[in-house]
């Protein structure tokens, strides 16, 4: 497709702060730690960064996190924004960062986000911060946490397609196994389906182990034009091949279908721009705030037909040797979930897989990867497709 950003922008540096429980460190410190590592990984100097994109951090007092970050990090960018579309923000930072570079607004964009949901907020306030994100008049008075909106979609999926609690649990089991091979992951103790089913109900059909973690941590990435990446001698850049987004509703009661989401359209657009389809993908980062979310996304992203996500997972298709190894770092369920930055860890993993440096976690011949970020009860969906030099 001519005129789009396909293959025009490369990711040349990645970095991650410690994740999980990281006491005594502010979101800005975590962001700067990740950024420092990404800059070093790219082999550039921080003053070369002229664009900064970030998301809001609950545990930070700064409303303009991207601006506060730049001051903290000692840079003065000429392109910046603090984005907020809940969990989908991660993917939108890549899409917008790539568009800014392709459109000439910036040459080197730092995508960075971090939060301290585990140690920067009390557990009740962390939860409250999530209810606060629901509508003050038509949702919140009924005590509906954001978890509940996702729970109602999974519950309806079970009713319509016969998806079982055991199939939901299997997602958590697989991802825990993945996390056990990821250095620094927050939860690495193996679990079984029974462990998930016996972990205590949070909001039906979700048990505690069907729910993602609450964590501290952040990640950062350096984006620049493919041309510039070659000019400065980056050895194996990973290219952004396609992006797509879709926003179907704000209130859960206006979601057009509880079981088919905006991920269908956001991924369709991303695949179209990339010139590849779901069957071409070698590895995926699939937003996994809850187990059922993954099952629905494997369907909506086109990896299996609608209604068959539960069986797809049961048959081993979301892990090594299956159709689409997903969340090979452990995901939000077992690696870490620090809120809006959470999906950046999926990016970190998929890019690391495409670089081929994942050691015992490595997916063989990983050339094409997809990351799907979403949030707010499927209100926000954003997909990014990445590939190696061979896929251009």
């Amino acid at each position, binding site marked *: 497709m001519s005129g789009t950003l396909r293959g025009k922008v490369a990711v040349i540096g990645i970095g991650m702060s410690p994740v999980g429980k990281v006491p005594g460190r502010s979101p800005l410190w975590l962001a700067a730690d990740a950024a420092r590592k990404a800059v070093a990984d790219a082999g550039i100097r921080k003053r070369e960064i002229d664009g900064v994109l970030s998301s809001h951090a609950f545990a930070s007092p700064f409303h303009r996190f991207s601006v506060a970050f730049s001051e903290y990090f000692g840079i003065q960018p000429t392109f910046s924004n603090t984005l907020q579309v809940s969990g989908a923000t991660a993917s939108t930072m890549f899409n917008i960062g790539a568009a800014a570079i392709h459109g000439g607004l910036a040459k080197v964009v730092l995508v960075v986000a971090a939060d301290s949901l585990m140690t920067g907020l009390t557990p009740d*306030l962390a939860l409250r911060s999530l*209810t606060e994100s629901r509508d003050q008049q*038509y949702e919140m008075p009924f*005590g509906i*946490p954001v978890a509940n909106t996702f729970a109602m979609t999974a519950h309806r999926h079970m*009713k319509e397609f016969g998806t079982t609690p055991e199939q939901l649990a299997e997602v958590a089991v697989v991802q825990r196994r993945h996390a056990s091979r990821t250095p620094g992951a927050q939860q690495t103790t193996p679990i079984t389906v029974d462990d998930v089913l016996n972990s205590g109900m949070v909001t*039906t059909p*979700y048990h505690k182990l069907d729910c993602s973690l609450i964590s501290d941590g952040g990640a950062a990435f350096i984006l620049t034009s493919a041309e510039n990446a070659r000019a400065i001698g980056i050895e194996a850049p990973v290219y952004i091949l396609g992006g797509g987004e879709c926003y179907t509703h704000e209130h859960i009661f206006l979601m057009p279908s509880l079981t088919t989401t905006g991920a269908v359209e956001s991924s369709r657009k991303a695949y179209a721009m990339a010139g590849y389809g779901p069957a071409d993908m070698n590895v995926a980062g699939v937003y996994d705030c809850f187990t059922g979310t993954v099952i629905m996304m494997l369907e909506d992203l086109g990896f299996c037909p609608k209604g068959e996500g539960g069986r797809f997972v049961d048959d081993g298709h979301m892990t090594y040797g299956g159709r689409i190894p997903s969340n090979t770092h452990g995901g939000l369920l077992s690696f870490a979930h620090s809120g809006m930055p959470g999906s950046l860890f999926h990016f970190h993993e998929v890019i690391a897989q495409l670089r081929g440096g994942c050691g015992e976690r490595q997916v063989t011949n990983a050339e094409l990867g997809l990351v799907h970020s979403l949030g707010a009860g499927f209100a926000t969906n954003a997909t990014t497709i990445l590939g190696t030099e061979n896929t251009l």
Partner: protein
Amino acid sequence: MIPPEDAARKPLPAPDADTAMFWRGLREGHLLLQHCTDCDHVQYYQQAVCRGCGGEALTHRPASGHGTVHSFSVVHRAPGPAFKADVPYAVLLVELEEGPRMISTYTGGQPDDVTFGMKVTLALEYVTDEVVLPRFRKA
């Protein structure tokens, strides 16, 4: 940062210019829906323009109060201190007879009694002098 005393207080709706009529309707015993006289769109929640055609020819009419449970989730772990005393409670996604869906909670029975497709009917909860919440019980 939310002070702990605020976290323990249940959130109450604060009506705005678009929604004042809706909350007044509940105080008077009616669950109001907006009907567009131009395109026949029926909408919940209340706003100044029709989400169907963008027009402003909207009239408020009381809903029958009858609906079915499209989906639900029983909350066992409260979203913050304010709802701790209420668990377990069933959050409902009710599909009203007139078409629109709305979020509510189940009242007048055990949360485990709620099923998909269950017929429910409006049950008003008088929370304060100003606020009446639309909840639902088994029809």
